[in-house]
């Protein structure tokens, strides 16, 4: 893992599908391997969508934490062309 890894927080609260996953992909497009993306989402579909994407793409789902009224979904970029 790179020592210069970045952590980026994407606030998609209030946005419905496909808003959160689209915001995540925008961050993924500009991310480097090892970077961590935290997605904040109120849309209940976001948890399942991000989980499915990490499973298919081989990126790492670090965790999903239920905060007050939203979910904090953390992904580490481990697979990118």
């Amino acid at each position, binding site marked *: 893992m790179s020592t210069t890894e970045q952590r980026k927080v994407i606030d998609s609260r209030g946005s419905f599908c496909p*808003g959160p996953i689209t915001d995540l*992909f925008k961050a993924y497009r500009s991310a480097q391997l090892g970077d961590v993306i935290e997605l904040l989402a109120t849309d209940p579909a976001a948890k399942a969508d991000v989980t499915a994407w990490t499973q298919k*793409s081989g990126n790492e789902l670090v965790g999903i934490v239920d905060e007050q009224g939203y979910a904090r979904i953390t992904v580490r970029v481990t697979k990118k*062309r």
Partner: protein
Amino acid sequence: MKRVVIVGSGDGGTFTANLLASKLRKEIKGGLVSVQLVGEHLLHPFQPGNLDIAFKGAVPDKYVRAETDLIRKGVEFIKDPAVKIDFSARSVATKSGRTLPYDYLVIATGAVADPSKIQGLAEGALNFHTGGADSRRVWEALQSFEGGTIVVAIAGTPHKCPPSPNEAAFMLDEFFQKRGTRGKVKIRFLTPYPRPYPAEKVSHVVEPMFQKKGIDVVTFFNVDSVDPAKHKIYSLEGEAFDYDLLIAVPPHHGADVIVNSGIGDQDGYVPTDKGTMRVVGQEGAYCIGDATTIPVSKSGVVAHLQSVVVAHNIIAEMNRAKGLLEYNGRINCPMEVGNHKGIFVSATYTSPPVDQSPSTVKYYMKRSFAMIYWRALGGGLERVFDVFFGQTRFPATEKEEPEKTAVAPVASQGGKREA
């Protein structure tokens, strides 16, 4: 004199100008209000017609009218593209060097489909999002396509007309069915979303139909690049697919004038209040349609419904109407699913799309939009739309009272279209 400057003469800009000209007819005639519509093009396209041009062979001219034939009396159309918007000076600069001061500004500059943003896309793919001429190239390519793999890909989000990639796949299936060569053509649909259509309830309709028609779906495919020489498309996630013909929705971004004025987000879209449609933090400035950061469909219907709110709110700020209105996020995107059937993707900020079945009625309603579009731009169908769309706006829960800049009262407000 209160000056309204509208930047962008597409659907939203033209309709807003016409609404203001209608509702402020006497004020404009009396020299109390001016409405200037600043645009780049003399010709105004009906953009949903691009699908018909690309997949049904319609002639591009069928979906184009002269802008000057679409604007009401009282609107000054300035064919001179805006190059800079200056919020602090409250003015718009044009390419020819004019400076247009404003009291009220409406930004309706749309979104730009830009294949150059993905390596190899401009050279390797055709598309139906960059105008009638490029859509016609899709149709021409289909004429000589005898067999092989056609890939329909979404190469960037958000993009104009969310259902259009799905419609493209459905219309390709229909085209080759009619020609009798469907068995020789593989249709593959690449989407960055988790399902064939981003909204789950709509996908419940689309997914089984894709399966039945043999349209292969690949989800979570974020386009990275295209190799035109190898006829291959690659995803950021590491997948790759061969194609014989690639039809891709290009990435979109905001208009140059937004980027060059430094008033947009990283993609060139203008931060906008999703209710009142005011530009965030800017007095007297509004933004509508594809140009905003609001997370709803980039579509003509959305621009149209937001225009009604903005026209009302500007008139309210002039003290010529009561109270501000807020847009409720209503979208209504018709989707053609082949064989004369259609569905509507309808939702608001608080109500996602619901389950539905494709119907012939919805297909013909979609087709009728192409016929009524030009009349709708003039504002003559608002009562019909109010019935069709239901409630799309409601009184604002005032967060910040705008400074009232009253216009001297005039006896009544006009309504009849004059041009």
